[in-house]
């Protein structure tokens, strides 16, 4: 039941806009007709063929699900970049051709929610921009809280203020103005679903607060798009394929497996969905689990690893791939 990802869509960049010094906004058009329909909260994987390496980074679709003439994404330049965001910022311009995978939604709106509470931090606003198109057409109440470092860093503050003057609130760290997470979560009507997308610390605070206040897990949704952590280089043996490979310090294990020509499964590339789970046969060192999928017991057992974000501190890791 393995799934291949050969089936990408060729696209051309038709507009690039520098929204802030760190964030660029890209408009992508299909080279093969209309783009596939999607639901708000979906991401795509953008395949970037660099000179040395192929990068596959997930980016949330921020355009309207009802407009399929193009897709829009925003890319935060991560510093130091592992390569993907730098590639998008430096190499990609109007006319550049890229490949994207079909949209996947791991952060969809709950259709039975009585109210939606959206919490965005920084670039984490992007999935909500697409969802707002759906929410505006529904009769379910919602509110958006959007925090940025400063008004200058708030890529889409003006857009949000214009689109949602009544149902949004902006916060800027520079004004010492923060989202009162406990306060918000403690006064929501029964049946509310909360969604958070932003920096890891913000997600953790929301999850902790929700748990403390007794929110059911099924009503708490989050999306992390952390870049795979870097680390020391190590060697890997893929037992089934009979392939030996080397993982560079700024390369993820999954990227190294792909570079070796093995079509490994993945969905989120962020350590959340569990789709890329690989069986560890042996390791002469320790596994460095960076995912949010495996339980602590599973991590301690050392039998599985999520190659999209996790790596090993060892000389050789042997996987059943």
């Amino acid at each position: 039941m393995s799934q291949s990802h050969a089936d990408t869509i060729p696209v051309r960049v038709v507009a690039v806009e520098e929204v802030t010094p760190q964030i660029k906004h890209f408009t992508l058009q299909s080279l093969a007709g209309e783009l596939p329909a999607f639901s708000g909260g979906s991401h795509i994987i953008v395949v970037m063929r660099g000179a040395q390496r192929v990068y596959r980074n997930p980016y949330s679709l921020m355009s309207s699900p009802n407009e399929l003439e193009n897709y829009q994404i925003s890319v935060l330049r991560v510093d130091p970049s592992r390569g993907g965001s730098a590639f998008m910022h430096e190499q990609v311009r109007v006319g550049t051709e890229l490949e994207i995978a079909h949209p996947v939604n791991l952060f969809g709106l709950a259709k039975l929610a009585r109210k939606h509470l959206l919490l965005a931090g920084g670039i984490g606003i992007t999935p909500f921009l697409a969802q707002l198109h759906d929410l505006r057409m529904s009769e379910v109440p919602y509110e958006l809280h959007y925090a940025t470092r400063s008004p200058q860093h708030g890529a889409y503050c003006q857009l949000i203020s214009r689109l949602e003057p009544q149902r949004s609130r902006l916060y800027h760290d520079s004004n010492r103005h923060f989202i009162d997470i406990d306060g918000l979560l403690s006064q929501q009507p029964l049946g509310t679903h909360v969604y958070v997308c932003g920096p890891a610390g913000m997600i953790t605070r929301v999850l902790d607060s929700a748990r403390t206040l007794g929110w059911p897990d099924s009503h708490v949704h989050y999306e992390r798009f952390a870049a795979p952590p870097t680390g020391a280089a190590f060697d890997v043996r893929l037992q089934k394929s009979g392939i030996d490979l080397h993982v560079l310090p700024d390369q993820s294990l999954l990227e190294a497996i792909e570079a070796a020509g093995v079509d490994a499964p993945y969905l989120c590339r962020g350590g959340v969905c569990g789709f890329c789970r690989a069986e560890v046969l042996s390791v002469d060192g320790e596994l460095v689990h960076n995912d949010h999928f495996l339980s602590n017991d599973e991590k301690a057992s050392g039998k599985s690893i999520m190659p999209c974000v996790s790596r090993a501190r060892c000389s050789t890791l042997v996987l059943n791939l």
Partner: protein
Amino acid sequence: MNVALKMDQVYRGEYTFANSPAAIRRFPLPFPEDRYMYSVNIEPHVAGPKGSVIEFPIDCDEHYVEECRERAIVIQQDPLRIQALPHMMSAQWDTLELGMQSLSQSYPDQFTLTRAGRHWHWINRPLGLNQHFTFGDPASLPQPPLEYITRQLQGDWVIMDQRDNDLWVEGGMVTGPADWSMDFDMGMSFKEWHGPVPLGHEMGVFDRALKFLLNLRLNEPVRRYNWTMTVNPNLDSSPHNYPEWGPDRTSVTLENVARKLHLRTELQGLWRLPRSNGIVFMVRTYMLSVGDVASIPKWARRVHRVLRDLHPALVDYKGLTRHRPIAVAYLSQFDDGSPTTPGIAPE
């Protein structure tokens, strides 16, 4: 379709349903080997051989008009066969799009879809339909979108919402089920829905299938086959009208088994839906009389062996207890013990 559409056969009363020689040979035999047990037999729903039931994503065969007519009769008698919860409206439109795109691309001589933004124009020549409508506006169609499109598709169709790491049966058009009920199953989770199936739960089949389906991707549909047997070509073997078909189960004899008893294959397809992020589940039923099975020597040997050696729990669950011995006795005369070639092709 390069086949002649049959127009007059019925799935009730006189049961005049029958397969042409070409339809017999393209029947999807559900047994790739001489024995059968459950497995997570899911595979990518990619194009199969020309002329086969999997040549196109949604197969349209010689029974198309008759099966659509049968569906209309069932709904008229029992409107609860088509249902959808209010939050499934976007999944209804997704399903309509899938059906119209698939049919018009696979059978351009029979079906035409023209789209200009949200203004769509649909022509269904076999059923004589010509409809302009606005995609997303239910008022622009004579029926809600799921009902409109599934009245023009063969097979049963269920739409599922995905939430809480589960799939929920929250809409569907089910007029030809092998003894299950949309009305009864509405609102169930994936495992509740499959609750009556024996052995599978213990084998972990449903855990694995659910996990797989939760990650089903757009543009990468999957399929599997299931099967049972039905007395008479009675497409609507539903619990709702058991009094009508249940007694037939005692009517099978060695003399009539060849024409009365039917092997019933379900080609099940699953697609991720784009706008709703739900999943649509197609259960497309093909029926072949035991006599027609016996007309293909390899199939006669194989079906004989599968039925003879079937696990007792499956015999009961599939409702075969009464007539399996008769079918085995009948088919045994065609089984000389010689091996069968792998795969389902007639040879």
